[in-house]
């Protein structure tokens, strides 16, 4: 696994690395404040690159990710 670095601000701290254990490389994102991990493959990354601006804005709503109250499961430590 190649460590790319830590992307940090006063609001969040995420370790970014390149994971090569699968059959093709993928990005490994680790929320260092909680330990939660998400992998993003090439197609998912390309989709983010091309996503409309509103997509990320919507995702930044805390009720859409870690603090949703519909009981659905998501990434976690």
């Amino acid at each position, binding site marked *: 696994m190649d460590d790319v670095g830590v992307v940090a*601000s006063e609001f969040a701290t995420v370790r970014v690395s390149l994971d090569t254990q699968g059959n093709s490389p993928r990005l490994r994102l680790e929320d260092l404040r909680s330990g939660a991990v998400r992998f993003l493959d090439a197609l998912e990354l390309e989709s983010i690159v091309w996503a409309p601006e509103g997509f990320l804005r919507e995702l930044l709503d805390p009720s859409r990710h870690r603090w949703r*109250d519909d009981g659905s499961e998501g990434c976690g430590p």
Partner: protein
Amino acid sequence: MSTAELTGDLRSRVRPDRVHGSLYTDPDVYARELERIWYSTWVYVGHTSEVPQPNDYVRKHIGPQQVVLTRDRTGAIHVLHNRCSHRGNLVCDADRGNSSSFRCPYHGWTFANTGELLGFPFNQGYGGAQAKERLSGLGAAPRVESYRGFVFASLAAEGPTLREHLGAAAERIDQLCRLSPEGEVELTAGWVRHEVTANWKMLVENETDGYHPQFVHSSIFSISGSGIGALYSDKSTAVTRALGGGHSENDLSPEFRRLGVPMGWSGTPESKIPDYAAAMRATYGAETGDEIMINGSPHVMIFPNLFIAEIQLFVIQPVAVDRTVQHVTAIQFAGAPDLNRRLVTQCVGSVGPAGMLLADDAEMYERNQRGVAQRQPEWLDLSRGLARERTDEHGFTVGTATDETSMRAMWAHYLTLMDPA
């Protein structure tokens, strides 16, 4: 004291040749200054070079108000109040950063760097995501404008434009920017925060007081071998000029033109910065380039809080009637790396944490504040040079380099804001 009582009383405390000591110590006066000056007129906030990239932000201030200067993803500049719309917590804590959104650490309310509310945790408690429509985002300064990269904000929705507010002081910003081969100033050298136990007006008055340098700053002038001190004398051709709007300057350029030495004003001989001198002549032509380098950098106080002192820039921040913070940085010029390195070194010596110039002034501010708390005599004298003031060819009131012309003009403008006739 009630508003009505203060209104009548203020005009009696500001006379053409003196001001009453209570203007520096009275909490009622300070409270009115916040409303009538700091939260009404244009106040300097920051520089676009401090937020060069999309989503950059820096924490700044408008008097005691904490604000965040942001550049959104489209490049637009915003000045936001640093206060969560939920429970009032400070949203941003870092001095600077890069983030498209800000998340309050108290309950997680999240805002775009335009101030828009993006969401909050567990939104069912508010009836779902649509509650964003009725809840507030971050407060924003109703008016934000910039001039040559200098960003000002007004917390009043209406009033004079920034250009009207700056008036002739805008030309001094032009003068500063012309000293860059690329025509731009960059405030990228970092900041020193220097707090003094003194009223903010002590600082404003001092910035263009040419009477004190030979006394207060004699040690740094002698150690550094600077000839600047001698320019603040009645024999000098330099002048103190009231620029209107409470702005003022010490114009030393007549002396620099008389000497005719490129960069003579700066304390850095041209031989030490050959790349800069060559770039200036390449940009402006040999003759104009030399004129700009001879003429020098402005020494201008832009009311109420921006002081450009040749090689350094001060931002004045009142935090209480008797406490003021000066934020200081070395001015950097785009396209001038060799000059910029020397300017940082010079500023460390003059206004750095152990700098001599700022320490000299700070000592006087604090002694002055303690002094005006004494009972007698009640008034501070402002009469120096009153009888020899004249109007220059541009219609500005000028005095000699040591006259108190700038203070008198500042107080006259102060009254127009604090107690409009």
